[in-house]
């Protein structure tokens, strides 16, 4: 009988341990200035940032099993939040939903962290190795990612995306876009961008849309394909060169001039106005009709 009771007690303890919450809930609020800088470090899991009209920063969500705490430092002008994790282990996954003042500035750093930012008017900066990144509606965006996909939409002034092998998409907006990849895919689309710079080592880069008069697009690639889908009705001066790659031109009858070391193609559509310069070592350049 006693052994049966002992066995039941042990089983109960084990069951309780199994049913104990693996994650710790978080629900905290701090006062913040309307243009507060909010810095968030979460090594794994997700960070979802939403803008609101209150002068507060709230964090709701769960800290992953093994996470030590959500650490706060700073003041209402600069708030620094860290999901603390043991430094020498694979970090636990914490999922945080953060509300920030709409005029705030945001900086998120992660390792294996999905990052979503929506509606923040100030500059947004993210760095992560794994996990996707989406940012919409910010004035300025800077994204550094290694493996994760990136999608940036509707940025008003400046986008800089440094991807390595994740796919990156930049849609719409105005101002400047600088996007680079090592061996992923970069697609930029828009009709009001003033300056576009696309760089690739071995990945493919693509622009689709229109360029306003006076705008410029520079694309450089070593071995990756550069594809431009700009309508012939858009006034553009093209200068395209490659050493050992191929130039395919669907926009006009102009053919590349070949020398021993290089192929070059220069022509204009609809009287010119915007500038396109493309240069590759061995990558294909394809000027396609949209």
């Amino acid at each position: 009988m006693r052994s049966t009771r002992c066995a039941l007690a042990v089983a109960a303890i084990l069951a309780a341990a199994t049913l104990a919450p693996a994650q710790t809930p978080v629900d905290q609020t701090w006062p913040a200035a309307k243009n507060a800088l909010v810095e968030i470090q979460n090594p794994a899991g997700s960070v979802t940032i939403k803008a609101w009209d209150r002068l507060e920063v709230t964090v709701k969500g769960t800290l992953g099993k093994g996470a030590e705490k959500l650490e706060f430092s700073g003041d209402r002008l600069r708030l620094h939040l860290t999901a603390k994790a043991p430094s020498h282990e694979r970090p636990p996954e914490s999922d945080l939903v953060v509300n920030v003042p709409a005029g705030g500035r945001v900086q998120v750093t992660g390792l294996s962290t999905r990052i979503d930012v929506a509606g923040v008017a100030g500059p947004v900066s993210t760095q992560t190795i794994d996990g996707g990144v989406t940012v919409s509606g910010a004035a300025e965006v800077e994204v550094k990612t290694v493996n994760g996909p990136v999608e940036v939409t509707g940025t008003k002034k400046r986008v800089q995306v440094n991807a390595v092998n994740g796919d990156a998409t930049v849609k719409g907006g105005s101002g400047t876009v600088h996007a680079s990849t090592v061996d992923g895919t970069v697609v930029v689309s828009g009709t009001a961008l003033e300056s576009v710079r696309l760089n690739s080592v071995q990945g493919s880069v693509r622009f689709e849309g229109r360029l306003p008069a006076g705008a410029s697009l520079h694309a450089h690639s070593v071995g990756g394909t550069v594809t431009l889908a700009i309508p012939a009705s858009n006034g553009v001066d093209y200068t395209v060169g490659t050493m050992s790659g191929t130039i395919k031109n669907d926009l006009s009858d102009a053919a590349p001039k070949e020398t021993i070391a290089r192929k070059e193609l220069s022509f204009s559509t609809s009287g010119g106005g915007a500038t396109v310069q493309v240069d590759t070592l061995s990558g294909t350049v394809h000027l396609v009709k949209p």
Partner: protein
Amino acid sequence: MDDYVDGLLDDGLQEEVRRHLAICPACAEKERGLRRLVADARALPRAMAPPRDLWPSLARRLGATPGKRRWMERAWDWGGLAAAASLVVIGALAAWWSSRQPAPFTPDGTLGAAVRASYAGLAADDEYERADAAFLAVLETRRGRLRPASRARVDASLRAIDEALDAIRAELRERPSDPGLNLMLASVHQRKVDVLRTVVSLTS
């Protein structure tokens, strides 16, 4: 960035850059690095070329020998890594400073065309390779922080860069003075350093 450091921007733009630096650690690090480089370049006698082999100094700063990895891991100082990258380009910057050519860095923080054009691609290859090796040695100590699939993808991208570098080198052997190829080699090298720096930084 260099115009900002030199105080050449108009007040509005200067303030805009200052605000951006306040929230962007990457750019802030570039700014600090540029200020250090400019200070170093100013300190160089204008008539003296910088030493060709930068590796001894690099190695001293990084402790980049296999037996010292644990020490490196403990003592790793991001400033040291920035200094490594700084050393790679210090010669070029010194040349830039002497001639006061504008824009040593492009807005995305890579070396500007004027500097890179004066920068013999293949001759700089060894220095970059050694800097890469130092970053890789540190990365090796931090691999456990990455998921296996992530490690594999990072390795694949580094291989893609190495293949690109090989392709550019092959062309450069045929046309060593081609400015476009030299720029491309420097640019891809810079990209590799940026990738390594990002991974090392985020896994620290």
